């Protein structure tokens, strides 16, 4: 390990600590603001640490993504009316989950297309990736549904049809089955 790697590890550790302190700060009205700033700072540290990682060879797409996402997030946070807050959080949540699912997919693609050695893909790693994609995709669609319902785009009453439970169970079994097959 050279110094850069030590620094990266340190930033991740610091970010974790700052996140925990930040959440703890949010448990009291007086310290809520400070807690949020701690969490923000932690996120900044994590990003800086990652940008220094030696796996990264090109920065163009990262910077482009940061700009697009920053503009979109900023605009959404700035112009959304205070009354539409729950919807916006749901939508934002869908974005985050979508990103997590995409990371899992890209990682899996890297292993199966010979970019990274397949031998490195242990069962534990595969399991973690499977869960990442499964839960990420589940959260994406779930959050989008929540957004649509809160916004009044979809009726709030539950959609019920005959044999729904059986269908849902089959769907779940298929997902888990596919996951085990892989």
């Amino acid at each position, binding site marked *: 390990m050279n110094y850069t790697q030590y620094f990266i590890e340190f930033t991740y550790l610091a970010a974790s600590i700052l*996140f*925990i302190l*930040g*959440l*703890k700060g*949010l*448990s*009291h*009205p*007086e310290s*809520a603001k400070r*807690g*949020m700033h701690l*969490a*923000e700072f932690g*996120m900044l540290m*994590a*990003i800086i*640490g*990652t940008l220094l*990682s030696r*796996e*990264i*060879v*090109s920065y163009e*797409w*990262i910077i*482009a*993504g*940061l700009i*697009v*996402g*920053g503009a*979109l*997030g*900023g605009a*959404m*946070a*700035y112009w*959304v009316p205070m009354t539409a*807050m729950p919807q*916006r*959080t749901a939508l*934002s*949540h869908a*974005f*985050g*989950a*979508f*990103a*997590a699912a*995409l*990371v899992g*997919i*890209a*990682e899996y*693609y*890297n292993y199966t297309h010979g*970019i990274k050695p397949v031998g490195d893909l242990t069962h*534990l790693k595969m399991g973690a990736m499977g869960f990442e994609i499964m839960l990420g995709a589940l959260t994406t669609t779930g959050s989008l549904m929540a957004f649509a319902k809160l916004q009044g785009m979809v009726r709030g009453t539950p959609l019920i049809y005959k044999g729904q439970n059986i269908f849902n169970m089959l769907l779940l079994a298929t997902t888990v089955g596919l996951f085990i097959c892989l």
Partner: protein
Amino acid sequence: MAALYVFVLAAFLGYQVISRVPPLLHTPLMSATNAISGISLVGSIVIAGEHHTVATILGFIAVACSTTNVVGGFMLTDRMLRMFRRKETAVATKDKTNASSNGKAK
């Protein structure tokens, strides 16, 4: 295996930290945790930085999405807390009996 330990311990820690949050702060907390969940940005950055077409394209979308999450989440939390602060001082001036929870606001 160490990762599994971290995961389980983090789950307990999260429960402990969150369980003490008063209902008053639930909405900002939801927003803040939403922003923190944007930590998947870290993974997205690594994926986007690798020099392979498919991974880079997926990574670019992922970076854009998670940055939206992070920036939007924190800015919204800030907006909420600012509103909250104003309301709290208003309550403090109106109702002096409730001094225990807003000692600093006086």
